[in-house]
């Protein structure tokens, strides 16, 4: 009898077997690094499927019989937002609680910066400078302009500082806390190089630390310097990437911040080390809850205003953040998407980058097909400033109206009156993070530091 050989054994499986460890993405990542010899760099922010608690895990519980709603499309519901009431002589007064976050002229094109400024101004909101200093056209187009003082101090100019409506001392960014920015050589054009005092075409790695202070005690003096330079007129924001939020927020408040900006791990970036975007920082929802608890812990909640940032997509995310205690939200990526980021236009140029519309995260290349994250004059022209500004304004209006719809349904004549009691958690994890009862129960499972004592229903504390 002839024994069967290996060739005779049928081996034509119906289904391909993929390794759960070495997935196609992991195999590609290893092979890309085997070519590069360094960490990978890209833009946009985390691309991971979110398996952590997010704003989507909360739901509003509007008025029924125990509470009376406002007429959703008619009755007044104020959206006025005031920031910087603690020490500044002239707090920032905005018509809406949705603001445009700092994105640098360098990461973004001139057209994008000016369109964002004009769009925000049209609806009485603010925009922020970014790593690379103030663009004059941006100042002239803004109603309220926040001037960022970053570790790199690129383009730092005392005259610009004095033109600002608020100052934001940036310690870190949610997408990449603990690291500085990156601007690859393709975007360091002669204009950008001149603005930043850098050689043309360098792969520029911004510092992660401020050059003239290190810890929270030195920051007290730094804040005093910025206030002295601006005669204590404008509010001083401190912005941080979300890591040890409960401690960091208290330190920033102690250092004398008027407003604290907490940027969660879902925040975007023009270019950063890929693994930092995916594996550092804590999610925006968790950061929000820790930040409020921290301010309550030092009895400064309400006196120090809170801005939350990091992956805010719409009025629902914003309304939930506000119900949890934010005074305002920052948007960045969402604002760029309103300028046509990832829209199926010039599809052939997305393909040249090895990507497709709706999937592009190639901000770092400087070859943005829709003229937003580029310094190429031809690509930049694809973004019409006036049309872009209208779309930014429309998005801000739409988000504001979404916040108002929810606030009115919850019986609030002011969007700032939204409160944790208006929310229920849809998952156990969200309940644990937020200290909000799981829907269908009146129990709080877990809760952040100092949180459940204050917000759990009576009898559950």
């Amino acid at each position, binding site marked *: 009898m002839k024994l069967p050989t290996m060739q005779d054994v049928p081996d034509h499986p119906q289904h391909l077997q993929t390794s759960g460890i070495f997935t196609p993405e992991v195999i590609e990542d290893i092979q890309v690094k085997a070519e590069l010899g360094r960490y990978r760099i890209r833009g946009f922010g985390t691309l991971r499927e979110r398996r952590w608690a997010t704003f989507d895990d909360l739901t509003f519980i509007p008025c029924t019989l125990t509470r009376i709603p406002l007429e959703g499309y008619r009755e007044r519901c104020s959206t006025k937002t005031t920031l910087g009431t603690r020490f500044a002589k002239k707090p920032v007064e905005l018509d809406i609680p949705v603001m445009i976050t700092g994105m640098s002229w360098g990461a973004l094109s001139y057209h994008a910066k000016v369109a964002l400024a004009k769009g925000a101004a049209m609806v009485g909101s603010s925009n922020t400078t970014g790593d690379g200093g103030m663009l004059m056209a941006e100042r002239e187009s803004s109603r309220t302009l926040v001037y960022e003082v970053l570790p790199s101090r690129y383009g730092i100019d005392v005259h610009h500082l004095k033109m600002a409506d608020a100052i934001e001392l940036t310690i870190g960014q949610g997408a990449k806390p603990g690291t500085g920015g990156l601007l690859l050589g393709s975007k360091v054009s002669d204009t950008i190089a001149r603005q930043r005092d850098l050689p043309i075409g360098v792969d520029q790695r911004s510092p992660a630390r401020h*050059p003239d202070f290190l810890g929270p005690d030195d920051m007290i003096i730094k804040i005093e310097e910025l206030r002295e330079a601006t005669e204590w007129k404008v509010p001083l924001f401190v912005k941080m990437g979300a890591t040890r939020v409960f401690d960091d927020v208290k330190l920033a408040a102690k250092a004398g911040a008027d407003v604290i900006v907490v940027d969660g791990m879902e925040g975007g970036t023009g270019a950063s080390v890929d693994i930092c975007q995916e594996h550092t920082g804590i999610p925006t929802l968790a950061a929000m809850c820790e930040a409020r608890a921290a301010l309550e812990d030092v009895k400064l909640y309400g006196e120090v205003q809170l801005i939350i940032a990091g992956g805010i997509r719409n009025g629902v995310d914003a309304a939930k953040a506000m119900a949890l205690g934010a005074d305002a939200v920052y948007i960045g990526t969402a604002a760029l998407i309103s300028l046509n980021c990832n829209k199926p236009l010039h599809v052939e140029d997305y393909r040249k980058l090895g990507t497709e519309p709706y999937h592009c995260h190639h901000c770092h290349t400087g070859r943005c097909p829709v003229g937003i994250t580029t310094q190429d004059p031809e690509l930049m022209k694809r973004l019409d400033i006036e049309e872009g500004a209208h779309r930014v304004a429309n998005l801000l209006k739409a988000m504001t109206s979404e916040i108002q719809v929810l606030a009115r349904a919850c019986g609030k004549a002011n969007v700032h009156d939204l409160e944790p009691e208006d929310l229920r958690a849809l998952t156990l994890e969200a309940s644990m993070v937020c200290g909000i009862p799981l829907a269908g129960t009146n129990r709080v499972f877990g809760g952040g530091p100092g949180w459940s004592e204050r917000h759990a229903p009576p009898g559950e504390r």
Partner: protein
Amino acid sequence: MVEIDGEGRTTREINSAVQEAVSHGADDIRVRNTGGRHNLGVAILRPVRLTLDGSVGYYCAGLSDGPSVEVSGSAGWGLAESMMNGMITVRGHAGNGAGAAMRGGIIVVHGDAAARAGVSMKGGTILIGGNCGYMAGFMAQKGVLVVCGDTGEAFADSMYEAACFVGGKIGELGNDAVIEKPSPDDLELLESLLSKHFGRKLKNLKARLRAFQKVVAGRKLWNFDKREWKTWKEAL
């Protein structure tokens, strides 16, 4: 001459008095009893003369554009940080990060400067009569840093287009820092700086000039390059 007594006054009160004098056209202002206060003479935007009698704390003359400030004692961290233009003279020593992120003007420290003098500087000149601490010139982008004495470790680390000159011993060069022979133009610049600011103290200027070494960026960190792995593994 406008005289302001710092005794019993807060930083805010002293700075307000200085700014008020500046706005009224005073061109010579003296603050007595500085008491080591932080943030004195911040954001002065006119070419006035300000004398600070005593020592000062952090960020003295920070964010300024144009003044001529003299500190008779020593200065704390971040002396004249982000200065656009002006001349800041410190008779004593300077703390960490003197001239951090400065964009123009000149800082003259007669004594020593601590760590990170000229960190992230974007222009202007820093002249240190004595020694400097570690990481002086770190990430300096443009401008000139002159150290007449010795430097600490990691000198001129990760620089762009700034130039450093050292009259004494270099403790250790930082990443991508390389020594170059000073050009005739460099020597002329050094001679004029030293004779102008330390003229009376310096003997044998010509002989001392010959000892100066120039340090610039090797430009190996300007662009990512896997072939330079030895350099990059420190810097990445």
